[in-house]
């Protein structure tokens, strides 16, 4: 432009100049007419010699007013712009052109229009200036808007409540506002030396990465996330941070802007809400309690998760409404439930009902529901809400309890036993009609401890003792006692008592039964008598069988031998004599046996006659030894008697004592083919009582434990025991011994082991004034064979 202006001022050559001038003029004219820019030829003092329409329009004048010479550019220039014009004029005069500058024109209508002026000095005799004027109103408006915008941003940045920070490509803070500083508890200076990462919670430092990548890829212009920042004092706060990238106008480098909103309180509130909801859900779950809300206008029901579960549904799997709800209700309860809810709709009254539901899994559960209506300003019910509780187990338990109670009542009513209840201290607390019926006591008489009066006086102490002990130990007890009936007779009863504990393990009461066993006892006694009789008959059979056998055997031998003797040709001389001897021996044996039988019978019946005198024990033993000596092979078996002291005496029946020792010696002899049989008699004192102890010890075969267990039972040993277990002897000998020992107030024991011999020990009272007649039976006790 400057060079073009210079050209304008150069004088053209003649011919070429003329043509060139023509061309230049034509171009100028087209420029003027194009009206793309205001063009005017002016002088230094305001005169305007030429102007195009753009120029005239710009300053608000018509062509006619221009032609009439009414346009003067100084007139349309506000005084404050005149110095600029002066400066431009000076430059024009100096340089021929001036630097474009801005000024304003005051239009005819009084408005100001901003313009950009470019002037060039025209060559010629007069000072003429070619002025190009451009309307820059649009640009100015834009600049103003930008300025205002910047001003607003500045204001927001500086004073706004939102924390803001500008950071560079290395994440360093470049500019931060007050709010941001306040949030972080740091001065802007402190922040300037830090990066974004420095103030971000370690766990959240990676949170931006995916967004940053998308931002850089141009997919996003900004993004918002919530993350924690860490204040200078170490406290972590939640913030919602919006980040956008921009290029710094000056440097062209990328930078970022973060807008930060502290949402800690909201977060905490949300967490509290979440926790509270979770606790509520948990509580509902634990309590099998759900909650529901029913918006009537929309017929939309909202259920808590647990409410779904109560219906056997997974939370959120259906969108409940009234029909769906009714469909879940057990068909038998549906009508009632519908009527109840409709009633509540009408009158706004509370809901409180139990109903069954038939769940999809086939289970029938019982729910208890409470609810109330929500009414609007006009009093119309618009919604209902409430809670539901699964009470199936409780209902079942109650039913079980009712059944149990009924069963108990039935049992009590049906039982022949009396059922009683006492408190924890043992006092009767419940009237028992059956007790009154039996004893004739009144209710008042029987309660507390009054019932004891109806117990047989002999049984009272023991009963009270056992009962008190049971109360102390809390153990059940059972005891038998006699109860006075109203007619004065006594009934035998068995009383059983068991404690009832509370959950804490304390006895809250006692329950028990009283069973009348009088008839049973009578029947048992009768049965015992029958058994005794049966046993006696059996024993008699056994005795008869054995006696038969024991007598038949020698009888058969005697008969055979005598018949043989009668056959004169069969037995002669020595043979006949021998037969006669044998027959005689058998007859003697039979006689002894009959004597033994009679002896046992006398001892058993208590009709034995005793000759009670002073008995020298040593002599009785010696006489017994001498009686048995002929039977013993003196070469094989040694017989001995020892008495200490020699004059050892007792009061008793001398013949009986001799018989006792003889019987025992006879048994010893039967078991001893070789060795020794010794009799020893010594004094013995036991429990302030004087005895004589007589021991008969042999070194024979010994007796098997099976046999010793049966010793002294008449006829038991060989009553059917034959073969290997056959034991010779009737058992009468020891039976007689038992009777003798009983009369002498003593006892017997045996110690024996097969192959090692047998020792029988007899104790006889030393100073019994008369035969013992207490009917006491002497058992032969078996001792371990310590011989």
């Amino acid at each position, binding site marked *: 432009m400057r060079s073009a202006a210079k050209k304008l001022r150069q004088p053209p050559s003649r011919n070429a100049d003329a043509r060139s001038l023509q061309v230049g003029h034509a171009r100028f004219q087209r420029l003027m007419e194009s009206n793309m820019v205001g063009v005017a030829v002016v002088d230094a003092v305001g005169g305007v010699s030429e102007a195009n329409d753009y120029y005239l329009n710009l300053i608000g004048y018509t062509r006619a007013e221009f032609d009439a010479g009414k346009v003067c550019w100084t007139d349309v220039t506000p005084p404050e712009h005149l110095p600029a014009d002066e400066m431009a004029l000076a430059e024009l005069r100096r340089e021929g052109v001036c630097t474009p500058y801005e000024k304003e024109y005051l239009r005819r209508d009084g408005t100001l229009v901003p313009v950009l002026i470019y002037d060039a000095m025209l060559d010629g005799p007069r000072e003429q200036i070619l002025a190009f004027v451009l309307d820059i109103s649009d640009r100015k408006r834009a600049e103003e808007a930008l300025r205002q915008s910047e001003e607003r941003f500045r204001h927001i940045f500086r004073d706004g409540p939102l924390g803001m920070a500008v950071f560079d490509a290395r994440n360093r803070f470049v500019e931060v506002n007050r709010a941001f500083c306040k949030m972080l508890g740091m001065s802007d200076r402190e922040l300037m030396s830090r990066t974004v990462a420095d103030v971000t919670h370690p766990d959240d430092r990676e949170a931006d990465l995916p967004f940053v990548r998308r931002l850089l890829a141009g997919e996003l212009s900004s993004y918002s996330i919530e993350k924690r920042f860490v204040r200078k004092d170490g406290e972590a706060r939640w913030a919602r941070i919006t980040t956008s990238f921009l290029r710094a106008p000056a440097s062209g480098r990328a930078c970022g802007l973060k807008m930060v909103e502290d949402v800690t309180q909201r977060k905490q509130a949300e967490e509290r809400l979440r926790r509270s909801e979770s606790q509520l859900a948990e509580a509902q779950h634990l309590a099998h309690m759900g909650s529901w809300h029913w918006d009537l206008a929309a017929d939309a029901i909202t259920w808590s998760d647990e409410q779904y579960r109560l219906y056997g549904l997974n939370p959120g799997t259906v969108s409940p409404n009234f029909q769906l709800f009714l469909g879940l209700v057990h068909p038998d309860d549906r009508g009632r439930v519908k009527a109840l809810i409709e009633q509540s709709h009408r009158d706004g009254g509370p809901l409180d009902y139990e109903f069954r539901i038939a769940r999809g899994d086939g289970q029938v559960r019982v729910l208890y529901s409470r609810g109330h209506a929500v009414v609007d300003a006009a009093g119309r019910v618009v919604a209902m809400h409430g809670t539901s509780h699964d009470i199936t187990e409780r209902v079942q338990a109650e039913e079980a309890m009712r059944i149990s109670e009924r069963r108990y009542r039935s049992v009590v009513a049906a039982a022949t036993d009396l059922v009683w209840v006492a408190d924890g201290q043992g006092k009767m607390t419940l009237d028992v009609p059956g007790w009154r019926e039996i004893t004739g006591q009144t209710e008042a008489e029987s309660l507390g401890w009054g019932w004891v009066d109806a117990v047989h006086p002999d049984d009272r102490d023991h009963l009270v003792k056992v009962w008190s002990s049971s109360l102390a130990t809390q153990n059940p007890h059972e005891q038998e006692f006699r109860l006075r009936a109203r007619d004065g007779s006594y009934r035998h009863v068995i009383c059983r008592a068991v404690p009832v504990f509370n959950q804490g393990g304390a006895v809250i009461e006692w329950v028990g039964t009283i069973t009348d066993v009088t008839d049973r006892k009578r029947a048992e006694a009768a049965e015992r008598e029958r058994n005794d009789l049966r046993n006696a008959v059996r024993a008699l059979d056994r005795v008869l069988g054995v006696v038969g056998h024991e007598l038949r055997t020698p009888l*058969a*031998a005697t008969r055979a031998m005598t018949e043989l003797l009668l056959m004169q*040709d069969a037995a002669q001389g020595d043979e006949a004599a021998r037969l006669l001897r044998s027959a005689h021996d058998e007859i003697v044996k039979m006689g002894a046996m009959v004597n033994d039988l009679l002896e046992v019978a006398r001892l058993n019946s208590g009709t034995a006659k005793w000759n009670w005198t002073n008995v020298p024990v040593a002599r009785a033993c010696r006489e017994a030894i001498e009686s048995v000596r002929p039977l013993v092979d003196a070469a094989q078996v040694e017989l001995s008697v020892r008495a200490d002291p020699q004059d050892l005496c007792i009061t008793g029946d001398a013949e009986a004592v001799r018989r006792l020792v003889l019987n025992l010696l006879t048994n010893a002899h039967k078991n001893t083919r070789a060795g020794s049989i010794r009799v020893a008699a010594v004094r013995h004192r036991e429990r302030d009582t004087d005895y004589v102890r007589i021991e008969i010890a042999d070194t024979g075969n010994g007796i098997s434990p099976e046999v010793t267990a049966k010793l002294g039972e008449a006829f038991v040993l060989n009553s*059917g025991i*034959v*073969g290997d277990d*056959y034991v010779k002897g009737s058992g009468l000998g020891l039976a007689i011994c038992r009777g003798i020992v009983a009369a002498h107030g003593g006892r017997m024991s045996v110690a024996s082991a097969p192959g090692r011999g047998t020792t029988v020990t007899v104790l006889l009272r030393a100073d019994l004034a008369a035969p013992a007649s207490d009917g006491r039976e002497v058992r032969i006790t078996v001792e371990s064979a310590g011989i």
Partner: protein
Amino acid sequence: MKSILIVDDTRSFLDAIALSLRHKGFVVVRAENGAEAVAAADRTRPDLVLLDLAMPVMDGLTCLRTLRGRPGGKDLPVLLLSALTDRERRDEAERLGIQGVLVKSQFSLDDVYRNVVRLVGLPTEAAAAAPLPLPAAG
């Protein structure tokens, strides 16, 4: 010659029965309990056994059961001579197979002889003519 095994633990009875049967011409073998009887039967193969029941060492029923289990023992005639008369033992003996029962003290020597002849026939003349050996001294 017919051989008879007599089993009884009462020696005087055993002597009398043995003596009378020998006198009639039978060969007589004696045993004082079941165990001896089984051994004697194995040894002498008797034509008949006269058996007591109540005996030591081995009783009559056990002896009978043992004899029945021996070769040829199944058909050996056995006559019980016993003082025991209880049903139980009698039934058990009959189940094992016996040819008769004589209750002790209820029969004569003649009864014994007739039952023996019934079961084994008469002794041979030769036997009858044979000299009567003396029983062992008792």
